[in-house]
């Protein structure tokens, strides 16, 4: 029998089957902490109390391992440590640290535990705890995704700060003879009763000899100095002065630049190529084959791209339907028992329920991630060591894949994680890293920076999956009485994990996420079924993953039903909602905009939508005006319950940005395939939102829930249906397909 570790690495042990199988292991092993990786080569006189705090005689370093792709977690992690350590952020250096299992993400698994995130019952918590144990033993991955970085960090980083502080106090007590109880700490120093100070840096040597304290009680949030208050993000000055080094800006002695071309029919073969013209072009050093394509190595990125353009290719067929229409047709034939992914939710009896019917079919297209920094990685393959400079959300896998390609032991493969110029899920993929490794492996001794052209980035993106929804709602006596929703889509998780060499047994929860867990406890009849196909284009997690398309389907159908019932869209949603925090966010958003109903005269309309994803209930109201030139977005209001606010300013930025991201793509973006290739090649035909289209956006965070939540993704799902519902209110036109521009003009 393979070991548990092996099973879990190869088949993600997530979902019902694995739990029912009852894998047993010692609680002790699951609770024992991993060794502190900083101790491996810590210089004498330095102290590292836990994996997150290092102090030596001249500086304090805080380790912030979650990847930062713009969400601000770099700064937030440091702030959590600093709060308890009693240092200010201007006194410390913050580092992404080194990939190590000590930094594994405990919280990312919660969303996959098979229980709605609002379910805090003992059973749900036991399963989450159990899964957390499995993750730690079998798959202790550093990973940033699923809006999990804040929940993962919140307790453990504050604890890291507290244990370091108390250990430093102990060292100060031993040195000064003053009892610990009489010592205080402030701004990176221990304060003695006579007012004199011993800097932490001066205590590093002494503290290094003390076994770090454990289980220090955390401070009441009422005592917080840093957390919960507006902060200046640690990366803000650098990002405003062009001095931050993103992966693409990394420079090192002797480095050459490279770019690649692989089959734009994703996963198709390269039958042949002719690089004779490219070989003689200025600056070209070498042209090499890589998996599925070719790389040009040159002394300048632009020269590499020019030469790559001059290569003639003979590309093989795509392993999926060549034309977009066939994708939709295939999807429309997927609503069958043979393709059933899950009957995810059944309340009451939707078929027997009485009432007038409302029927709709909904579509959500493929969309590209297209973060502004194109994918890139710099790799130096040396004698018995490999260095990688790139930004990635799953760090250890980067090292593992590069080790496999170069044949260098994984322990000698070192990823230096970099700031990322946007991801939206793009930096969960590994192809760009593997390609850079294949190139660097053929150029041993020379650092190679591989950069995608924007066109390659579009052609080789694994986009958001397409989704089709079919719904039947019933209404009676002015109320919605039943929702019956079927969702068909490409399995994102199978597609994505397949590229990582893992298989996913059982259903893919992303195909009903955001619909099956809608907390409409007062709706007597609700059924959500999902259907799965794997025969379409390869796809990947796109910010909010399944909840994006699914909440659009759910909330548009619900809005149609409410309209048919003649009820108020906000009041009826509140009536159906049995979940207290969700009721509160709906009430809050209504209060913020002084809601008086969907029609507010003069061609103006308001739409409301609610979305539950990654544990966060969010309610959004959008206001539009129907003008002669088209729909104009005037305002949006967003309320969400995040449990606890870490930085109100950054949270507002994420609320605005997420709403804009949701709205912009709903209006403007799709990827379509022709001849097996994505037709959209650059931002001119897939731009998201631009400033002139952007409405004013007001945000109100609530702190009701008992758990702290991440907010990178939750603002996305309700934004698109809120806009669609607003357009209906303003014009009477119901739009059931994204992107909306195909059905109505926008200013």
């Amino acid at each position, binding site marked *: 029998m393979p070991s548990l570790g092996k099973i879990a690495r190869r088949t993600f042990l997530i979902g019902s089957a694995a739990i029912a199988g009852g894998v047993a292991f010692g609680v002790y092993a699951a609770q024992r902490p991993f060794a502190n990786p900083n101790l491996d080569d810590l210089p004498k006189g330095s102290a590292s109390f836990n994996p997150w705090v290092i102090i030596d005689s001249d500086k304090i370093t805080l380790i912030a391992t979650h990847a930062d*792709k*713009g969400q*601000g977690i770099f700064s937030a992690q440091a702030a959590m440590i600093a709060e308890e350590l009693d240092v200010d952020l201007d006194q410390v250096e913050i580092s992404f640290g080194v990939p190590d299992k000590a930094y594994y993400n405990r919280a990312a698994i919660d969303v996959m535990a098979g229980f709605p995130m609002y379910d805090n019952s003992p059973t749900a918590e036991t399963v989450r705890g159990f899964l957390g144990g499995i993750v730690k033993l079998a798959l202790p991955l550093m990973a940033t995704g699923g809006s999990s970085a804040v929940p993962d960090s919140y307790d453990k980083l504050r604890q890291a700060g507290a244990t370091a502080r108390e250990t430093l106090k102990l060292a100060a007590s031993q040195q000064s003879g003053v009892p610990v109880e009489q010592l205080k700490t402030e701004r990176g120093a221990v304060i003695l009763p006579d007012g004199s100070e011993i800097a932490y840096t001066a205590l590093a040597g002494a503290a290094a000899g003390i076994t770090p304290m454990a289980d220090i009680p955390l401070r009441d949030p009422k005592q917080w100095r840093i957390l919960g208050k507006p902060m*200046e*993000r640690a*990366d*803000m*000055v*650098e*990002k*405003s*002065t*062009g*001095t931050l080094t*993103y992966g*693409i*800006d990394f*420079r090192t002695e002797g480095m050459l*630049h490279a770019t690649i071309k692989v089959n734009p029919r994703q996963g198709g073969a390269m039958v042949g190529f002719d690089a004779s013209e490219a070989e003689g072009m*200025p600056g070209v050093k070498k042209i090499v084959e890589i998996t599925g394509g070719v790389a040009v190595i040159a*002394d*300048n*990125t*632009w*020269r590499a*791209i020019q030469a790559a353009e001059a290569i003639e290719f003979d590309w093989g067929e795509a392993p999926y339907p060549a034309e977009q229409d066939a994708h939709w047709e295939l999807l429309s034939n997927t609503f069958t028992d043979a393709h059933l992914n899950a009957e995810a939710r059944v309340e009451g009896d939707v078929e027997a329920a009485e009432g007038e019917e409302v029927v709709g079919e909904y579509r959500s297209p493929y969309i590209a991630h*297209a*973060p*502004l*920094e*194109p994918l890139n990685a710099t790799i130096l393959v040396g004698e018995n060591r490999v260095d990688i400079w790139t930004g990635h959300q799953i760090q250890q896998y980067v090292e593992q894949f590069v080790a496999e390609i170069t044949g260098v032991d994984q322990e000698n493969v070192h990823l230096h994680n970099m*700031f*990322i*110029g*946007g*991801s*939206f899920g793009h930096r969960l993929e590994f192809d760009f890293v593997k390609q850079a490794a294949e190139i660097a492996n053929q150029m041993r001794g020379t650092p190679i920076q591989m*950069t995608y*052209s*924007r066109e390659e980035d579009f052609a080789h993106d694994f986009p958001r999956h397409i989704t089709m929804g079919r719904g039947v709602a019933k209404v009676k006596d002015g109320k919605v009485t039943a929702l019956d929703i079927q969702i068909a889509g490409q399995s994102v998780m199978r597609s994505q994990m397949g590229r990582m060499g893992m298989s996913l047994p059982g259903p893919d929860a992303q195909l009903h996420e955001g619909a099956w867990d809608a907390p409409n406890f007062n709706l007597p009849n609700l059924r959500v079924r999902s259907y799965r196909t794997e025969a379409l284009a390869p796809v990947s997690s796109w910010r909010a993953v399944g909840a994006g398309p699914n909440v659009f389907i759910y909330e548009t159908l619900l809005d149609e039903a409410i309209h048919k019932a003649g009820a108020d869209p906000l009041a009826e949603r509140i009536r159906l909602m049995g979940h207290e925090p969700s009721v509160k966010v709906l009430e809050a958003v209504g209060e913020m905009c002084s809601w008086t109903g969907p029609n507010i005269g003069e061609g103006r309309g308001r739409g409301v939508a609610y979305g539950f994803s990654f544990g966060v209930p969010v309610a959004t109201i959008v206001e539009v005006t129907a003008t002669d030139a088209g729909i104009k977005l005037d305002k949006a209001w967003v309320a969400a319950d995040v449990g606890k606010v870490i930085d109100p300013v950054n949270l507002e*930025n*994420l609320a*605005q*940005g*997420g*709403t*804009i*991201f949701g709205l912009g793509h709903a209006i403007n973006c799709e990827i379509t395939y022709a001849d097996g290739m994505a037709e959209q090649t*650059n*931002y*001119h035909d897939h*731009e*998201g*939102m*631009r*400033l*002139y289209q*952007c409405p*004013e*956006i007001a945000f109100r965070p609530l702190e009701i829930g008992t758990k702290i939540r991440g907010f990178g993704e939750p603002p996305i799902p309700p934004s698109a249906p809120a806009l669609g519902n607003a357009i209906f209110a303003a014009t009477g036109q119901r739009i059931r397909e994204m992107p909306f521009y195909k059905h109505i003009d926008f200013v």
Partner: protein
Amino acid sequence: MKFTVNGTEHEVSVEDDMPLLWVLRDELNITGPKYGCGIAQCGACTVMLDGQAVRSCQVTADELEGTEVTTIEGLGTPDALHAVQAAWVEHQVAQCGYCQSGQIMQAAALLDMNDDPSDEDIDQVMSGNLCRCGTYPRIRAAVKTAAKTLQEA
């Protein structure tokens, strides 16, 4: 050809059609201007050429002789922020930040021409700069703050 970047004269010999963006980034290692699209769609590469905001991916080397280029690095520094940069920090505009060099250069150019831009002016001038993270509401606010600072200076 010879040209000046942030007050320093440089001499480079490259193909006539190499875009300024790549001269800056890969020949001179000035990496503040970013590559986003290469086709004048995103504005991440925006710099000032003889005082005018331009997309550096669209200006070619043969147009550079004798010109003066200012990149984000030449606008202000962490220790001496330009008014626009200070406003960007005050409003905590950046998310991933990758577009912000270009946004800031565009905003600085706008305020050079018009120290009291209306909402419409801002919409018009700043809409060529794409922000995939959606920082537009903060960009609007920061441009107004910077305008005020510059008016008072």
